[in-house]
């Protein structure tokens, strides 16, 4: 799980809320002021989700195991 904790907001929660918002706006007449508020919240959530996705760098890491295990592995490989 990526570290999504930011005032209790997780990626999953943000996605769920986004879905709700889009549904709400889609469903019926929301007064202008409220819809702007909701829109702003939605865009914040979009940014949050996007930044969460972008936070992770493209990285491939190899775990260096303890030296004895490494040497054992080398022995195994030599067999």
């Amino acid at each position, binding site marked *: 799980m*990526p570290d999504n904790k930011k005032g209790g907001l997780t*990626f999953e929660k943000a996605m769920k809320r*986004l879905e709700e918002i889009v549904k709400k706006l889609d469903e019926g007449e929301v007064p202008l002021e409220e*819809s*702007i508020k909701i829109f702003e919240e939605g865009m914040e959530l979009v940014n949050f989700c996007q930044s969460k996705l972008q936070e992770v760098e493209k990285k491939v890491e190899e*775990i260096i*195991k303890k030296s004895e295990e490494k040497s054992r592995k080398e022995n*195994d490989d030599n067999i």
Partner: protein
Amino acid sequence: MNRVYKVSELVEEIKWFLEDTYGAVSVEGEASEVRYSQKGHLYFYLKDEKAILKVVMWAGMVVKLPFKVEEGRVFVVTGNLTIYPVSGSFQLEARKIEPAGIGALKLALEQRKKKLQEEGLFDEEKKKPLPLVPQRIGVITSLEGAAIKDFLKILKECKVNTHIKIFPSLMQGKGALNELIEGLDYFEKEEVDLVVITRGGGSFEDLMVFNEELLVRKIFGYPKPVLSAVGHEIDVTLCDLVADIRAATPTDAARIIKNRLEEVLEKILEFKDELEDFILQKLEREVLKIEKFAAILSLKNLKRRVGEYFERIKYYNLKLKESQSKFIFKKGENLKYLNYNLSRKFYNFSFYHRERISNIKIKLKNIKFYIMQKKEKIEEFKSGLNHLNVKRTLKRGFSILRKDGEILRDSEQTKIGDNIEGELYKGRIRCQITKKEG
């Protein structure tokens, strides 16, 4: 005289004879009445259609058997024929037991699979779902194989960045089990969303480590989702069965992750578009509304409006006038109608009376005519009377007899005692009838 043996002597002799003659034998038959003793010894019978043979395997050998001897399965048992003197029974002491037609390992796997399945380790409802964002991935695999290359190749193309941590591990043979467990332990503490165990295809024996009960149970109780991609499609290991998500190959495993990440990204962008579209449309509608109001409120419009009102007032005025004259006209019409009605009634009335009068006139004429007629009749009578000249007849001595004014011509008109009147030339007489003749 035959030699008389002691029981133990004879049984012992046969036992030696059997052991010397046959040595090691292999016998195939169906297992029945299988019993594992508390000490771990194994007892059963091998049988075919015609005979049965008692088999025993001592505990020390039983522990080395990877599988359990099952009732009804056909086995090839290798061992020594002997007699157990205490019971005097003839039996095969087994050193090796192999299932017929199937490898011992395969049978062992079959039995283990059945056991774990019954325990619920492979139940779908116990599996964890693929994380919404499987972005930090722990991979347990060999660095040498093609598996990791295939896996990384796909994820390199992913539109969403991934952080991949590889725990190098033996993927077959001795030591593989320990390293796999170690890898799982390692990622349990690391911040990863998903642990992938992957290797390419291999022989049944190569993949045997992925059927180890220890590994299967470790994965079952693992706190994070585990994706297993071991071997090829046909090589289904217990590790595949117990894993939360199963992929056929390392490439497939990477695709599952890539698809999920890209789906999520797409969904976010979709939400973004929908939000923007919605708010733009909403604002556009509001702007249109405002423009409409502005247009209504503009000065030019106001002037036009006032003009319109004037026009309207003019129109109403005209209408009013029109309706007034119409009203007067209507009154005149009414009078005319009334007049007409009256004159009509009068006409009808006078016509009726004229009719009546003329009728009366006609009737009067008729009466005159009638009177004239009567007069004529009277004249006629007068002259008739003259012609008859009754008096002259009477003068000649004739009389007229009347009864109640009626002239009598027949005696039958009277009865005796009737009073009759006689008119003579001069005067009248009253007579009573006293006799009737003829």
